């Protein structure tokens, strides 16, 4: 289902926490100056002047050779953890690769004896006070402290002292989304730098120094206030910050990971859907330089609940004359009922929610070409950015995509004069205000929504459930005009059908 006039780019599948891995190439123009070269572990690599040794290594996929705690490609460099040290020939001491700019002709060793000894020492200090409660810790399995301990760490601790315990901050809710366990913190301060420099909300600080150094919300009464709190728990290298929604739900090694797009707003952040046996457990952002960088907002992160809702309608419903209620039925009956309704209607309007994929938009347009008018509707008005990062006011993912295939927006007066309104909407767009017409609902609805409609006297004739974004293939065009395609991340386990088959049922054509 692709159209050659659209530029389709697959979301880039990339490791979390690492930046773009695109090697730089020398300008083919013979007059241009050749790029400088740095030798890492015996191989020469070209780099952009200004790159640090760490960034050069990342560009060439050598990031696994250099462990790091404080460095994060999306944040300013701090150079505090000393885990990333490398040996540079002719330098008297080990250098921190995250903060040392690469120089032409530099010779770097990432795994010399001296380096490994230093990393071992750093790990020993980090573990001196670490509770090592991995069995209880949600980070276990994707924990950088665990991984680096296996790789570099000391077999046995040199410390025999009592471990430091932060009594108050053992399980402290920093907000309703994030829980802090200060005992596990390795003081990398990624979280503090994130709130200082990325969200610019300054809602985390490190109090005191040395032994007593403790993370706290700037205003203890208010707690964390930024809209990107989930990101803190993604990049916290240990289990000090955990996301309440995912906390204790699943151990991470059970999760299958598939790339997809967040449909929580018109930004279209690239995400990884983490699921176990097709049950979605969480969303995590994937790096995409052009769209979301390394981040995603909390609203989007939690938006999977719409689709994983126990009250989501996943079987076709038709209006039962006798009882006056919507009753669950099979697709054959539902198709006959809706098809008869569509045939008998004199004037039909199709309201297509802007949470439909562009492909679905084209299908709907084609299916109703001579039968009905098709209008798109988001219910959020014109889009504007809600902050300097990602969040947009249009909470539907594909307004621009539907605009691009030539559909026009729904005007308030459009609905009058029709006797049947078909509302297609997949859980994100708002429902249009319908009064007096028969309505067929197609898409993703919750039981609550249908009940609200019934109490406001909307005559719902049938509900035909369709697939959600994470369950289907398609493409969205985001607020900046980037078209991104995606494939199904999980398999739908209810009776919902894909759009082509629902349209076939509506217009009575075999497909």
């Amino acid at each position, binding site marked *: 289902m692709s159209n050659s006039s659209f530029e389709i780019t697959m979301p880039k599948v990339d490791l979390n926490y690492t930046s773009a891995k695109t090697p730089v190439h020398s300008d083919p123009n013979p007059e241009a100056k050749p790029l400088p070269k740095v030798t890492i572990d015996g191989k020469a690599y070209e780099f952009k002047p200004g790159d640090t040794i760490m960034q050069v290594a990342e560009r060439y996929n050598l990031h696994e050779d250099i462990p790091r705690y404080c460095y994060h490609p999306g944040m300013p460099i701090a150079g505090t953890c000393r885990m990333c040290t490398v040996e540079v020939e002719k330098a008297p001491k080990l250098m921190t690769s995250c903060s040392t700019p690469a120089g032409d002709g530099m010779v770097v060793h990432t795994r010399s004896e001296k380096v490994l000894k230093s990393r071992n020492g750093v790990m020993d200090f980090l573990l001196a006070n670490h509770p090592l409660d991995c069995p209880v810790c949600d980070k276990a399995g994707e924990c950088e402290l665990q991984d680096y301990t296996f790789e570099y760490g000391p077999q046995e601790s040199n410390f025999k002292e009592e471990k430091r315990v932060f*009594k108050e901050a*053992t399980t402290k809710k920093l907000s309703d989304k994030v829980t802090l366990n200060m005992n596990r913190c390795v003081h990398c301060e990624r979280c503090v730098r994130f709130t200082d420099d990325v969200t610019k909300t300054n809602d985390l600080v490190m109090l005191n120094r040395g032994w007593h150094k403790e993370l706290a919300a700037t205003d203890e009464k208010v707690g964390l206030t930024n809209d990107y709190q989930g990101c803190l728990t993604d990049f916290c290298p240990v289990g000090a910050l955990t996301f309440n929604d995912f906390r204790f739900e699943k*151990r991470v090694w059970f999760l299958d990971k598939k790339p997809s797009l967040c449909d929580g707003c018109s930004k279209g952040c690239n995400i990884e859907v983490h699921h176990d046996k097709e049950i979605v457990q969480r969303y995590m952002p994937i790096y995409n330089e052009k769209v979301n960088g390394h981040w995603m907002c909390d609203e989007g992160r939690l938006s999977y609940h719409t689709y994983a809702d126990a009250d989501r309608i996943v079987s076709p419903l038709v209006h039962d004359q006798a009882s006056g209620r919507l009753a669950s039925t099979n697709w054959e009956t539902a198709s006959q009922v809706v098809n008869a309704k569509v045939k008998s209607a004199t004037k039909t309007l199709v309201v297509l929610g802007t949470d439909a994929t562009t492909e679905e938009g084209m299908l709907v347009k084609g299916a109703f070409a001579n039968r009905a008018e098709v209008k798109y509707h988001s219910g959020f008005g014109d889009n504007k950015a809600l902050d300097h990062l990602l969040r947009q006011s249009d909470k539907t993912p594909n307004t621009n995509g539907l605009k691009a295939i030539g559909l026009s927006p729904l005007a308030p007066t459009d609905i009058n004069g029709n006797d049947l309104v078909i509302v297609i909407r997949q859980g994100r767009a708002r429902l249009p205000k319908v009064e007096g017409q028969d309505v067929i609902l197609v898409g993703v609805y919750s039981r609550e929504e249908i009940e609200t409609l019934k109490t406001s006297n909307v005559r719902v004739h049938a509900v035909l459930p369709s697939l959600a974004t994470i369950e289907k293939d398609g493409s969205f065009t985001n607020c900046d005009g980037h078209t991104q395609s995606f494939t199904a991340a999980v398999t739908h386990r209810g009776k919902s059908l894909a759009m082509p088959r629902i349209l076939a049922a509506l217009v009575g054509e075999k497909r």
Partner: protein
Amino acid sequence: MGTINVSRKYTLAQKIYLYYIIKGMLINLKRFFRGLFLQENWTIQYPEQRREYSQRFRGAHFISVDKNKTENCTACFLCETVCPAECIHIIAEERPEDENTYGVWKEKKPASFDIDLLRCCFCGFCEEACPKDAIKLSRDYEMSVATRDEAIFDLNHLKREVKGRG
């Protein structure tokens, strides 16, 4: 998969067949008379009499508890991960503050903990994986039940008192 025909070489005595029948009968007769006249028993009168099993026998599971009757399990899922029969099902939750006697060590607890004994193969891997010495296999080998549901041990049943091991 094909069929493999195996042929054996039989000795004359085996071919005649009667020789081994008589030999087997004689063993039966010998045991019968020894039981009859010398009161030698070859079986035990279960359930009045019970056989002594090895100390290392692996029977029905239990979960050890501390002195407050709080289960030692922290719902780490390691037993569920290691179980080859996939018969352990855990749902975890936050442990309330007042039950948190050891501070950080017990912040998580099982909301439910089910073991399906009908699927279990009594390998004992769960016992070995457990970092808290919580799940253990007792020496109890009497696990007959009337319905399948009863064969699913829940947390309450797992926390029962088990003598002789724990």
